[in-house]
């Protein structure tokens, strides 16, 4: 075939005509807002969360051979391969600032969905604003049970809340009792912000329902300079199980103070938070052999699902840490949201919401030990089974529920 001048011209014109479309398709991106504390007392959470979300975005935007929604395609196939772009905003643990940032992301950055927020108090205002602007919001890691009970239409939570978490702990106690372990009395130890209060209330109620005696119910001030008096009371109560709900700082101080005051409980069953943070185990891990924490994630899942190990490696390269309970939930939060946007084939809030409502993701295609992801009418996923993990030999192993367990619980702890 001879190339005539005319053909070249034609080709050039055709290419020129196509070019804007092609580049538009390439440039088209889906913007998702991420609201976390990036400064202030919990800045560390925000910094780690950023890495978790970036890992998720990488998985979505590039091709990976994972059995995870959107991993095998580059970008969102439902939107012509559009890539997702994340916009991070800092709420400094202040509900007012969270609210303002949500509004800014929606109106200025034109995000089509928001994921947040770590602090439950901030989730309250951010989800309110999202509802007003009809932008879907996923609570990646807020565990306050009141959040999904406020009649919001655009609120979704794929992860368990504190009542589910605490329920799992009591299921575990019941199971242990059947095996002949003596578990009759409990000591509750929780901080005084929304997380500890909610957790304490749920545990108190469950203990009454299931016939466990609460010997001490200690609410303490978060970030106290000293916990000696509190620990002294725990020691005096000497219950069969100590159940702390503490953030990292107080968790470190609690464990150190317990050692100093010679208090060694039979078992510690912790409400996550500080007790799934690397910093706590770096500081006092030697005193925590055999501690049990609830969680929604466990690295030993990697044996069954190799992608968990690979995703963990990606995250570790960015952050220098293994995925933990928080970063795994943050990762999944973005995957669930992106999956819905992809199915909605649109960035319209209502359409994404419809897609979220229709979500039915089998547990095997997540990195979590969940049964599946399916939201009820309040936006809560009730099939997100929590797990209990025990810290042995420098790592966590799943001990409960039986279908997820890889080891028997060591009781009492060393």
């Amino acid at each position, binding site marked *: 075939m001879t190339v005539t001048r005319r053909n070249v011209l034609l080709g050039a014109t055709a290419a020129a005509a196509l070019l804007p479309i092609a580049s538009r398709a390439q440039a088209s991106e889906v913007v998702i807002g991420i609201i976390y504390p990036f400064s202030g007392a919990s800045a560390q959470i925000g910094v780690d969360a950023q890495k978790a979300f970036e890992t998720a975005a990488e998985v979505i935007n590039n091709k990976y051979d994972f059995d995870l929604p959107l991993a095998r395609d580059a970008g969102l196939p439902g939107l012509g391969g559009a890539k997702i772009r994340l916009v991070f905003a800092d709420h400094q643990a202040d509900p007012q600032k969270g609210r303002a940032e949500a509004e800014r992301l929606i109106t200025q950055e034109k995000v089509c969905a928001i994921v947040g927020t770590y602090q439950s108090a901030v989730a309250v205002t951010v989800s309110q604003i999202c509802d*007003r602007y009809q932008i879907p919001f996923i609570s990646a890691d807020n565990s306050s049970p009141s959040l999904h009970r406020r009649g919001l239409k655009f609120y979704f939570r794929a992860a368990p809340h504190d009542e589910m978490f605490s329920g799992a702990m009591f299921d575990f106690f019941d199971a242990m009792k059947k095996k002949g372990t003596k578990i009759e009395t409990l000591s509750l130890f929780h901080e005084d912000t*929304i997380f500890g209060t909610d957790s304490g209330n749920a545990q108190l109620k469950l203990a009454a329902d299931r016939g466990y005696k609460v010997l001490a119910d200690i609410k303490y001030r978060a970030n106290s300079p000293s916990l000696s008096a509190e620990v002294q009371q725990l020691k005096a109560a000497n219950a069969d199980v100590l159940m702390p709900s503490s953030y990292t700082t107080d968790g470190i101080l609690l464990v150190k103070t317990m050692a100093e005051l010679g208090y060694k409980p039979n078992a510690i069953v912790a409400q996550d938070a500080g007790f799934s943070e690397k910093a706590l185990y770096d500081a006092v891990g030697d005193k925590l052999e055999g501690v049990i924490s609830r969680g929604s994630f466990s690295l030993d899942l990697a044996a069954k699902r190799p992608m968990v190990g690979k995703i963990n490696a990606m995250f570790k390269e960015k952050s220098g840490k293994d995925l933990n309970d928080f970063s795994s939930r943050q990762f999944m939060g973005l995957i669930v949201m992106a999956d819905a946007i992809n199915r909605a084939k649109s960035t319209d809030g209502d359409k994404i919401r419809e897609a979220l409502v229709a979500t039915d993701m089998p547990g095997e295609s997540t990195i979590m030990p969940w049964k599946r992801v399916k939201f009820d009418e309040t936006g809560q996923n009730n099939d997100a089974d929590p797990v209990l993990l025990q810290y042995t030999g420098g790592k966590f192993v799943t001990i409960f529920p039986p279908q997820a367990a890889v080891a028997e619980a060591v009781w009492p702890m060393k």
Partner: protein
Amino acid sequence: MDTSFAQRRRRDLIIAAVFAVLAALVPLFVKDVYVQNIMVLTLMYAALSQSWNILSGYCGQISLGHALYFGLGAYTTTLLFTKFGVLPWFGMLGGGLISALIAMALGYPCFRLRGHYFVIATIVIAEIALLLFQNWNWAGAALGIDVPVHGDSWLRFQFTRSKLPYFYFALALACVAWLVTWWLEDSKWGYWWRAVKDNPDAAESLGVVVFNSKMGAAAVSAFLTAVGGAFYAQFVSYIDPESVMGFQFSLLMALPAVLGGIGTLWGPVLGAIILIPLTELTRSFIGGSGRGVDLIVYGTLIVLISLARPEGLVGLFSRRRKGAVQ
């Protein structure tokens, strides 16, 4: 001297009126809700700082515990509304009155304290209140109170998306706080306070009346601060003890006045106009890094301004005027 004082006051009033009208027109041109949000906060802090300035600037009783009154206003309004269905307008008034009474009850023993003893007393009183609310189950304790919002309504003072009603309310509050200050400057209280500041011996002879005027200043200041708190609760429609009674609020109320010019009529307004947008913009545009750069910028500015302009930024504008008065 008297005539120039009167002249200055008249001129201040005219400038304020012009500013208020100009400010009221701004939202007609600025439609972006994020910017409007910053404007609402700026006006709110201008009003709060103006109220703080009455007690701490003019009267010389430095309070770092005004979060107490702010929180009381927010809680009274919200509790009355969510528990008893009382409209926020009455709640605002009720919160203001309760705060004024408490301010007087606290002022009675506290005004005997001097300097840092007084400052620390105000801090710890606010902290005690914070801890009590944090543990008060009926008032939501740490969980806070989520104000149910059912569409736009002036009656319930709730608006889902529009910032304009909040903007105009905050503007009105800032104007009221300014006018109260303006009026106080020329009242006998204002004269006593100046006399006490210029000449501590005068304080002895004026003892009782000055004490009473301080109680009055505390009540007025607390009332206005509580109305601001009630406004905040409506604006954010969620309150919890940390976010309305925390120490940071006490500081945020004091900072604009200090930077703008403590004990001056225009200081709080000027301070708020500079400080609040700065705080919001540094957080929004450099805070997402997680590296604390926003804190470094913000803190450096506070150090530099307070060292370079101890009389406040208002000094930049008033050199000529000072010459005229003296």
